[in-house]
């Protein structure tokens, strides 16, 4: 009887182990998409250098999924009104939508991450050859830390406000009684005079340097002199789409290629979107043009500055196409939006609160010291 019980326990344990193994095998057999970034996400700084995103679709055996089409949708982090980012209109929106052909299951692109937070990258993988594998989709998280310089700068600003508030409170909290023939206590007059002088000086500096800064930067917004279309002997190419964009909204761009040779070669596209204020790329993608010759993507221009989309058309390494690579480009006028008033008032209230705390501390400290001094 005891032996039977032991046998039962062993059989149950074996069955459980087998089921668990089968379960994990089934799970491992699921195809998936892996994401690697350069630099690693912990080192990414928002609104600076582009981040290289490398997506690799792999089958259940861990091998690359060949002949796949990856549809990407990159969503920005949700809104954070109580501690806004640089671009509040970009929060909670779509940054990029793109469909890429991946012969080896791999897609690479570079994108400047405009703000901190957790981005969502939705990937849908489909076979280019019917029924080669079952389509699947996956959501990936891309967490971008805040620029560390921002913490340092806001700490300095808050410390300055605290000290200024304390100094103001100290002076105001001093002698307040009027002496005969005196209009205002001398310290208060000095404080107000000093504050007014500082304010005037700050505004003068701001206005004068602003004038020279805007005059200096105006000449740098000129787009590169590249045509929007080109008609070659082997390939005709044209870029079209929205030439007006608004921050927070997607803008559609399309490249149309018409090879004049037979069979149609698989042409390569190298797409770069340049911010014309800095002439630095904010988005880069290199891939194969679809068989119908039309490549369409949607991207958001998060910086309210003029941009230019530059597309280089290249012949594939081994094909009947034999032409020099060439470029087409389109200038995009981006309408910037001023931040919501509520967001600005919230941060202003934080800064003001810091100043007021310093002011109250200065007032209280001086009053407390005066109370401790015996009257003559």
């Amino acid at each position, binding site marked *: 009887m005891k032996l039977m019980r032991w046998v039962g326990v062993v059989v149950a344990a074996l069955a459980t182990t087998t089921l668990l193994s089968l379960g994990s095998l089934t799970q491992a057999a699921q195809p998936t998409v892996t994401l690697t970034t350069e630099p690693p996400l912990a080192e990414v700084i928002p609104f600076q250098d582009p981040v290289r995103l490398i997506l690799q679709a792999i089958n259940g055996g861990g091998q690359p999924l060949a002949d796949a089409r990856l549809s990407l949708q990159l969503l920005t982090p949700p809104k954070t009104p109580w501690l806004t980012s640089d671009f509040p209109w970009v929060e909670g929106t779509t940054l990029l939508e793109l469909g890429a052909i991946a012969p080896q299951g791999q897609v690479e692109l570079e994108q400047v991450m405009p703000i901190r937070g957790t981005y969502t990258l939705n990937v849908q993988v489909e076979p280019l050859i019917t029924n080669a594998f079952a389509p699947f989709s996956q959501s990936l998280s891309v967490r971008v830390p805040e620029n560390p310089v*921002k913490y340092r700068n*806001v700490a300095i600003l808050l410390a300055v406000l605290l000290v200024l508030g304390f100094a103001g409170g100290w002076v*105001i909290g001093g002698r307040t009684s009027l002496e005969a023939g005196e209009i205002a206590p001398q310290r*208060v007059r000095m404080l107000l005079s000093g504050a007014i002088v500082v304010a005037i000086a700050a505004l003068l500096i*701001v*206005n004068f340097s602003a004038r020279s800064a805007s005059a200096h930067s105006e000449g740098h917004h000129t787009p590169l002199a590249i045509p929007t279309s080109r008609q070659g002997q082997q390939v005709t190419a044209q870029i079209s789409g929205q030439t007006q964009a608004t921050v927070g909204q997607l803008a559609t761009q399309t490249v149309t290629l018409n090879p004049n040779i037979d069979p149609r070669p698989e042409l390569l596209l190298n797409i770069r979107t340049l911010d014309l204020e800095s002439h630095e790329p904010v988005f880069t993608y290199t891939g194969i043009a679809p068989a119908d010759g039309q490549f369409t993507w949607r991207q958001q221009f998060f910086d309210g500055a003029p941009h230019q989309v530059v597309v280089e058309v290249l012949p594939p390494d081994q094909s009947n196409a034999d032409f020099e690579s060439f470029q087409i480009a389109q200038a995009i006028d981006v309408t910037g939006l001023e*931040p919501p008033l509520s967001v600005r008032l919230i941060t202003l209230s*934080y800064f*003001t609160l810091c100043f007021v705390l310093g002011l109250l501390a200065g007032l209280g400290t001086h009053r407390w010291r005066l109370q401790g001094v015996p009257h003559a």
Partner: protein
Amino acid sequence: MMSSFAYTLKRTQQMTLSVPVQASLLTGLCMLTLWTLFFSTYPPAHNTLHQARHQTLGVACH
């Protein structure tokens, strides 16, 4: 006997130089300066401090 005008003037001076009014004036001046530097959409102010706005936590630029 103090005239009505002189009395009013003295009361105004006393009120203006009182601690709450002085503190409010100073806070108002501080808020105005902060608004101009970090939150104003006035193009010259925005352009000049564009970089500083982008490098300060909690300050929205666009």
